[in-house]
């Protein structure tokens, strides 16, 4: 028992937001009389928040480099949406080609902003504030202030489609492929965890006691199971969810397990020391902003697909949602601390709050107020628990 308390205490900060997310979900589940977690609504929640999740992943990297934020992502989303509209609707371009070109344009935007930030060393805050104005302005010019619509189904499917069931449900109403994917993910998870534990044991490193390990495995597998079942009951796995899942996994591995990932954390921890240790910090900073802009382009594409329209007013305040998500998820405003998964949890906290309050009929004015308070409380909790542990 004591070990459980100990482990819990040690990881309190890490799991605090996860626990908060569960508590918030439980609250709305009760308050909405079960509507929140209806299979259809769970699917909706993911689609609604896909853009924040994508942006939060990229924003985490920027914040890691030293508390740098990107204020331009909302405008870049709109800009890319506008280009998408011109490519696909006006020019009747192939959707796949248009998506590729848009990601490329995102990369060019990133190179432009990254150059000023990393090599000229203008504060990111200012460069991206300029970007926010520049790309919003260009979007309005490009669309002549009008909204382009509708898009062909092959494009809107990015955000509205589901991965088709290869097994046709075997006569049930369930989406069997979804369940199958759930099982595979569970097996991979168990395999990796067992392997990691065996390796740590081999080197005589400290491991969690066996029974706790098994409890952990059961909990995670159960969560995967319930989640995929819930999706299977409705229409299956949304395409966008698969995309986001892959992004989160790839960026988690990148930040936690690779050499460039280490550089990100080192630079945010102490740029001078990182530099003198042989890290090209300019390159790290440059990469973070190129990456952010590409992900902003991706978010712009998915958002436009969901809206089924390219609007000059799209993406307003997206940057604030993404930044808030990262800080709620435990990123440090000074850099060097934070995780991709943390940012994702932060985004989900905000998403559930949005969705839950909408179902309850809370006005958007109050929603904004409450989200602001949650951001403040989450960061205050983080700051206070840190000063206590000192």
């Amino acid at each position, binding site marked *: 028992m004591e070990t459980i308390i100990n482990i819990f205490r040690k990881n309190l900060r890490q799991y605090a937001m996860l626990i908060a997310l569960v508590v918030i979900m439980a609250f709305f589940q009760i308050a909405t009389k079960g509507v929140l977690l209806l299979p259809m609504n769970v699917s909706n929640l993911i689609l609604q928040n896909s853009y924040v999740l994508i942006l939060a992943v990229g924003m985490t990297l920027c914040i890691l480099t030293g508390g740098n934020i990107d204020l331009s992502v909302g405008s870049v989303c709109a800009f890319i949406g506008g280009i998408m509209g011109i490519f696909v609707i006006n020019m009747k371009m192939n959707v796949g080609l248009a998506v590729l070109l848009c990601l490329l344009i995102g990369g060019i935007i990133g190179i432009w902003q990254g150059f000023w930030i990393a090599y000229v060393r203008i504060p990111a805050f200012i460069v991206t504030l300029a970007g926010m104005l520049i790309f919003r302005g260009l979007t309005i010019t490009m669309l002549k202030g009008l909204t382009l619509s509708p898009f062909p189904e092959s494009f809107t499917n990015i955000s509205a489609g589901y991965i088709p069931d290869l097994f046709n449900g075997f006569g049930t109403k369930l989406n069997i492929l979804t369940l199958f994917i759930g099982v595979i993910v569970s097996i991979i998870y168990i395999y990796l965890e067992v392997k990691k534990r065996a390796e740590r044991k081999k080197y005589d490193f400290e491991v969690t006691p066996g029974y706790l390990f098994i409890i952990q495995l059961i909990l995670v597998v159960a969560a995967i199971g319930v989640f995929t079942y819930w999706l299977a009951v409705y229409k299956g796995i949304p395409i966008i969810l698969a995309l986001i899942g892959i992004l989160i996994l790839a960026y988690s591995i990148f930040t936690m*397990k690779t050499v460039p990932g280490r550089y990100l954390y080192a630079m945010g921890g102490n740029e001078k020391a990182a530099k003198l240790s*042989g890290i090209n910090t300019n390159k790290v900073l440059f990469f973070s902003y190129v990456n952010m802009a590409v992900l902003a382009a991706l978010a712009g594409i998915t958002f436009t697909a969901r809206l089924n329209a390219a609007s000059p007013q799209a993406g307003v305040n997206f940057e604030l949602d993404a930044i808030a998500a990262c800080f709620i998820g435990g990123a440090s405003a000074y850099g060097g601390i934070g995780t991709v998964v943390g940012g994702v949890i932060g985004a989900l906290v905000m998403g559930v709050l949005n969705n839950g309050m909408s179902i309850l009929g809370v006005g958007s004015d109050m929603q904004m107020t409450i989200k602001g308070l949650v951001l403040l409380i989450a960061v205050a909790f983080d700051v206070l628990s840190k000063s206590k542990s000192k």
Partner: protein
Amino acid sequence: MFGLHMSRLDKLSYMQAEYKVKGDEEMAEFILEMRNITKLFPGVRALDNVNFKVRKGEVHALVGENGAGKSTLMNVLSGIYPHGTYAGDIIFDGQECIFSNIKDSEKMGIVIIHQELALEPYLSIGENIFLRNERSKYGFINWNTTHIQATELLKKVRLKEDPHTLISEIGVGKQQLVEIAKALSKDVKLLILDEPTAALNEDDSENLLKLILELKAEGISSIIISHKLNEVLKVADTITVLRDGATIETIQKDEDLTEDRIIKGMVGRQLVDRFPKRTPKIGNINFEIKNWNVYDPAIEGKKVIKNVNLNVKKGEIVGIAGLMGSGRTELAMSVFGKSYGKNISGEIVKDGKKIELHNIKQAINNGLAYVTEDRKSAGLILIQDIKNNISLSGIQKLKKNMLVDENQEIRVAEDFRKKMNIKSPSILQKTGNLSGGNQQKVVLSKWIYTEPDVLILDEPTRGIDVGAKYEIYTIINRLVDEGKSVIIISSELPEILGMSDRVYVMNEGRIVGELDKSQASQESIMKCIMQSNREVV
């Protein structure tokens, strides 16, 4: 109204104090008595029944290794650790002290000046002197009074600066004087200086010590915490040695008192030799800098390094001596992948081959390592653990299938922890929580892991206690025994003389002397510098 009320209270406490002093003749001798102070931190007894007495009008030095409890004791005294968080009594000026914060202790006339100065860089000297103590009326600052009084105080500390000058525009030595002026403005009776000369050059240190003695003549007592025992011997009347949170001894200074005698108390044994013995096995020239010139990156046309030539052989320790600002750090950093300066010209030859080092990565790949003089701000990532800090520079070696091999990383870090005797419960400890000596061992580990052939160590033992210094020296000796070359830059001449096989003397960006171990002495080094100064003029 409020002001009147306060002053009456002050008078009352003053009378009380007087009464008490009269009541106890013996106590009058001491301005401060700290009795049986015990302070616990989770898991550590930081102070254990410490007794510490300071006489009126004396300079009392508090010495001890890092972690001996000096700072903790002073924090108890100044109210940073409020009454109730420690056991024991503090009697100041005959009154029992119950401080709940620094303001309380300052009201009594106890002022502490920390090692890291607490001045606002973008406020003026005058504003800083009266910060939180503004000369004001009805909530408005009276700038005339501020200016006049600041000028007076500056005269007292013999600082010739306009009170309007910004703090950021004056050097550390002058800033230290501003801190003292600030203390004087608070009617200080007991001045506490924590490592006051750590960041100062010799002239400024000399100045400061003189000032402390002048203040003493005016009846202001002071406590100085210092690692520099020669300075302690110069100014202190009494020396109290702390070790492991306990008072070891209080020594009255007399003619016969030596540094070794004090060190014995600090480390608990007689350090026969402050530098470990080594029989040099010197090989061929390993590394050479030829006609090296560097310009200041900020000031157009200013040459910082002028035509420097130097070399170091395999298995050799070369010292670079010089005053602060002589260009030693700038030389080292410009060589280390051009991490300082612009328009750099000259040649670097390693193992007989000319090499080009355009960035730090190339320098590392060519077997160079540079241990910075400022480990906290430029050597370590304080929010990361020992393991990540050690692996940082050599992380490419840990790559396996594109990922960092974390198990191997843990083994490497564990290995260094044992080999370098890094004292910490685990390699997952944040480096920000380590003592200076252990932090330096982590930085050294990081560079040794890159397997360098030439190590440039800039002030390798700055701010480290005697015991840890000896350990660092042992590590350096081990490195040259393995055939590596070491260049030591140090402002402590005894360190240069004790460790080096050969000494270069630098002044004003030039090499002004090269001395063999047999020729090198404090006098011969200073002579080189003086001579070169004359030549320049």
